[in-house]
């Protein structure tokens, strides 16, 4: 009660305002961004479940036993059955090898099935979302099958023994992966029509799928329980597909956005933690007199300790409450900005954010405030009579270690990302060390240098050394704030630039594949006619994997890996394609070297290599057009999915695949108004396959625009945190500065002199801080870019100019403005205040 009163009084007096503000900000950052990150995570999973059309898919090469789906329904999960296979479809004179998807009325469990009544329409408003797929007797088809079969909507096509009415144009099924499909045009039919059609014969290659989804109101453990149950009963013909296998390019964008939110949240958290530590330090200094009084009144050490423990608790409580409110507001803003993309989830149970907020508040108080005030109960009672008594606070080194540990724990707990935490911590540690070493040297130099100066310069430069203890703390505060802000600025810019690049007006949104050599000039001419540009033609050879290290691939193994069952695209390149990077081994040198050697090298995509258990030096035998072709793995590569250019799992040196029949592929940007080119193209060259990515790209664009907005909101929060740190640091030295100014004023110094001393001191501190910050930022950025965003490190020369400039300007102005009142008030009034 007394503590509470005292707290309120303290608030009025302003002692705890900074402590509270920083604590509240820390809690706000944790609650708002953590929960946002959570929602983004959810959105990410939703996005990927949409790509599965379910939460979980069981894929099988043989009929799925009914008990598997029965069990799912028994566990109140939703199920849908699906078959995919390739089958001939006919019209009067034409035929086409279509890729058929047979679905039941519950499909899709997740995501949207869209159709249109207008083939090749450029009008996106013509696209409608269907509740369920075609009923028995009908089929929805890929628009391009219409010119191929020379039919229109409402006509019939022959499918085995039955006829199906073509009722709608199929635009997009959620699980039609945007990746390569070398089957023909897609048609969607009802699963009940499969048996009557009699198209499935002994030995037909059919993929059976069981789609599983969890009703939103049910407990997610149901799903994981079922998954476990299912996993124990899998045959070698079956595998489970999880939502993590989302469309790579979208997942990548979202993932980077999510990481950025996480990074900015972490930076905000660290900044407010530093502000809190600084404010606590000042708080402890301010409390010395009060504790001396308590002592002189005979309060026991235990009593004083309890007093401050409860005080800390009250601060934690109030700070957390305020923080939770701010956090909730910020979260609402963020959710509003991201609403088009984030799923509208019901608010979480009210208790969780509260607990996390309170936990953070308490943890911060324990880690930053308690060490700062720990010594207060042990102050010698004589402090009331003698101001100069040595105050044995917890040694600064210990407090530094405790503070860093607390920051580390907070970071890891909050971000659940060791790499991110390590990057930020390394940056901070480098700054701490640089401050201790370089800062001290600079202060010493300035002291020496002051001898050659006059007037305010001399006093200011001498002050830097005289007040070095305080200045070092301030310097650390300033540098870490500037460094973290710089880090954010760089990562944000590079991220947004990256997205812009990716969503450039010219980003290809269609792939043309399977273009025969003799079709090339014709296709090229047609594209020119529509004044479109391709991203260049890639040639490739189709082949299957046959042997690993001279041993025939077993049927069992083929069942397991889809890539062993289908034809692969083998291409070649002299130079490593952009966006590819070597993971292991080495890229080949000049072609002459390779042609001479007996071994043909091949470079394989790293994930595929892992999946197949292949490593450098393994010999692969491909079967290409009936001929065997041997190559040795010379390198593994990772691919970049965000530039929408063709990617190849297998790359060979130029020249080695010369004798095999090749086809061409390209990617190009087709704006909506020119989509009719596909009709012309397919009419002239029916065997060309088109992959339409425009809808996926639209989706990415929408997501990116929204994430970018979220990023901006976060950036402003971080800015506030940064300013708070600077403010806390500046106020550290204020009472001393007031005192000195008052004395200087009494002896008749002009206001101008006083102001210029402050200006020179703070500006020098700011410039030094900016310089040290650039060092820390460069390291943190390098680590973040490398560890978190997989992008290359670059030296940022502008940082080294921006850091010191911004530091000097900002801290010089802020500090001088803050200490202005010390020069305007009457000196006596100033002295009495102290």
């Amino acid at each position, binding site marked *: 009660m007394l503590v509470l009163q005292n707290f309120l009084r303290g608030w009025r*007096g302003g002692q705890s305002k900074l402590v509270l503000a920083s604590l509240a900000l820390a809690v706000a950052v944790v609650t708002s961004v953590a929960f946002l990150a959570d929602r983004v995570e959810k959105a990410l999973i939703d996005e990927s479940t949409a790509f599965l059309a379910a939460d979980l898919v069981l894929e099988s090469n043989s009929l799925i036993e009914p008990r598997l789906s029965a069990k799912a329904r028994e566990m109140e999960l939703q199920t849908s059955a699906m078959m995919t296979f390739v089958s001939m479809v006919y019209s009067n004179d034409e035929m086409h090898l279509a890729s058929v998807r047979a679905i039941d009325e519950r499909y899709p469990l997740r995501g949207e099935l869209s159709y249109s009544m207008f083939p090749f329409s450029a009008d996106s408003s013509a696209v409608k979302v269907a509740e369920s797929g075609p009923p028995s007797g009908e089929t929805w088809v890929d628009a391009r099958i219409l010119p191929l079969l020379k039919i229109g909507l409402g006509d019939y096509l022959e499918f085995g023994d039955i006829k199906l009415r073509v009722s709608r144009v199929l635009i997009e099924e959620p699980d039609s992966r945007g990746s390569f499909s070398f089957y023909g045009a897609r048609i969607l039919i009802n699963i009940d029509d499969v048996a009557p059609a009699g198209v499935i014969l002994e030995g037909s290659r059919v993929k059976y799928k069981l789609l599983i989804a969890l009703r939103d109101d049910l407990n997610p453990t149901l799903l994981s329980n079922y998954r476990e149950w299912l996993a124990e009963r899998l045959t070698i013909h079956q595998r489970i597909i999880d939502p993590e296998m989302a469309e790579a390019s979208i997942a990548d964008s979202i993932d980077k956005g999510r990481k950025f939110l996480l990074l900015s949240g972490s930076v905000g958290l660290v900044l407010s933690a530093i502000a809190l530590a600084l404010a606590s330090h000042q708080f402890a200094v301010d409390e010395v007199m009060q504790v001396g009084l308590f002592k002189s009144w005979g*309060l026991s050490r235990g009593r004083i300790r309890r007093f401050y423990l409860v005080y800390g608790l009250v601060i934690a409580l109030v700070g957390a409450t305020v923080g939770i409110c701010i956090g909730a507001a910020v979260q609402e803003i963020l959710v509003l900005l991201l609403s088009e993309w984030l799923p509208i989830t019901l608010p979480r149970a009210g208790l969780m954010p509260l607990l996390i907020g309170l936990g953070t508040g308490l943890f911060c108080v324990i880690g930053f405030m308690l060490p700062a005030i720990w010594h207060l109960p042990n102050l010698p*009672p004589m402090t009331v009579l003698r101001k100069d008594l040595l105050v044995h606070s917890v040694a600064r080194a210990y407090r530094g270690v405790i503070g860093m540990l607390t920051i580390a724990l907070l970071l890891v707990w909050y971000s659940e990302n060791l790499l991110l935490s390590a990057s930020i911590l390394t940056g901070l540690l480098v700054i701490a060390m640089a401050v201790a070493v370089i800062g001290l040297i600079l202060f010493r130099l300035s002291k020496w240098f002051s001898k050659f100066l006059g007037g305010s310069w001399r006093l200011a430069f001498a002050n830097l050394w005289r007040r070095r203890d305080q200045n070092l703390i301030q310097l650390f505060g300033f540098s870490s704030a500037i460094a973290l802000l710089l880090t954010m600025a760089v990562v944000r810019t590079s991220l947004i630039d990256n997205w812009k690049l990716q969503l450039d007006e010219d980003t290809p949104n269609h792939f043309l594949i399977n273009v025969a050599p003799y079709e090339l000039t014709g296709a090229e001419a047609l594209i020119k006619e529509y004044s479109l540009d391709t991203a260049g033609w890639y040639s490739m050879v189709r082949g299957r994997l046959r042997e690993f290290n001279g041993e025939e691939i077993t049927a069992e193994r083929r069942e397991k890996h889809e890539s062993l069952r289908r034809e692969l695209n083998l291409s070649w390149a002299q130079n490593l394609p952009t966006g590819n990077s070597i993971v292991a081994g080495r890229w080949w040198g000049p072609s002459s070297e390779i042609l001479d050697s007996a071994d043909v090298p091949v470079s394989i995509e790293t994930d595929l290599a892992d999946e197949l258990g292949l490593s450098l030096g393994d010999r692969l035998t491909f079967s290409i057009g009936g001929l065997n072709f041997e190559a040795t793995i010379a390198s593994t590569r990772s691919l970049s999915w965000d530039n929408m250019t063709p990617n190849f799992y297998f790359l060979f040196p130029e020249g080695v695949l010369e004798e095999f029949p090749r086809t061409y592929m390209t990617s190009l940007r087709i704006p909506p108004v020119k989509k009719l080119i596909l009709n012309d193209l397919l009419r002239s060259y029916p065997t060309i396959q088109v992959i339409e990515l425009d809808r996926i790209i639209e989706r990415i664009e929408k997501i990116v625009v929204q994430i970018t907005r979220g990023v901006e909101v976060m950036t402003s929060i971080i800015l506030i945190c940064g300013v708070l740190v600077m403010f806390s640091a500046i106020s550290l030295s204020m009472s001393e500065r007031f005192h000195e100014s008052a004395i200087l004023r009494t002896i008749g110094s002009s206001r101008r002199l006083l102001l210029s001393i402050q200006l020179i001191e703070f500006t020098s501190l700011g410039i030094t801080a900016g310089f040290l910050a650039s060092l820390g930022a460069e390291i943190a950025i390098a680590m973040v870019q490398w560890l978190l965003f997989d992008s290359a490190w670059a030296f940022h020369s502008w940082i080294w100019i921006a850091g010191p400039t911004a530091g000097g300007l900002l801290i010089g102005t802020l500090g001088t403005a803050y200490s202005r009142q010390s020069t305007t008030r009457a000196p006596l009034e100033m002295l*009495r205040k102290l």
Partner: protein
Amino acid sequence: MIHVSNVSKKVMVLNAELTILESLSLKVETGESLAVIGPSGSGKSTLLGLMAGLDVPSTGTVHIAGINITEMSEESRASVRSEHVGFVFQSFHLLQSLTALENVSLPLELKNSSKPESTANHYLKRVGLKDRMHHYPRQLSGGEQQRVALARAFACRPNILFADEPTGNLDIVTGEAINNLLFELNREEGTTLVIVTHEQSLASLCSRQLHLKSGQNFTPVEEMKVKC
């Protein structure tokens, strides 16, 4: 009330021992007022701290109200202070975040006395600050601040009141007023008073005076001038 016998105080300063007080003995009887006079740096504050139990002597003993505080733990000394001792300081030591009223009632609250507010109210009226109760220290003049400090000290009804240069920060006229108030209150409450000062006018109001000489000078008991 206070019995200081053969007390010396030495401190380590830069690895050298500095003797502040040496072999000092004195007695302060209940209800008496003692002025400790001496130039700056002569050890007045140090002696005050020892007598009040804020610090312990290097050798010798100090008794407060018959209790030997030299052999006690700091915690037990605290409880002795809490029971018997009050302070007035040169620089007032008011808590800036509290109003005058709150400054006075805070120690009462900490000592769990009944009705701290009304007691504080009473004493503030007594020192003539009826209209300034809800003002903050920074809104008060130096003299007014010291009045608040006096009210705070007397409100706890200590047996012994220690004042370390209570008028050192005030101008002469204001200082006089504070001195008078201090002694008036002292008479009303029957408090034992120990005042450190270098002002003769204040010292002369006390029943006894103790002169400390500058430096580490040994100050024998005999030197104490006793006034009626």
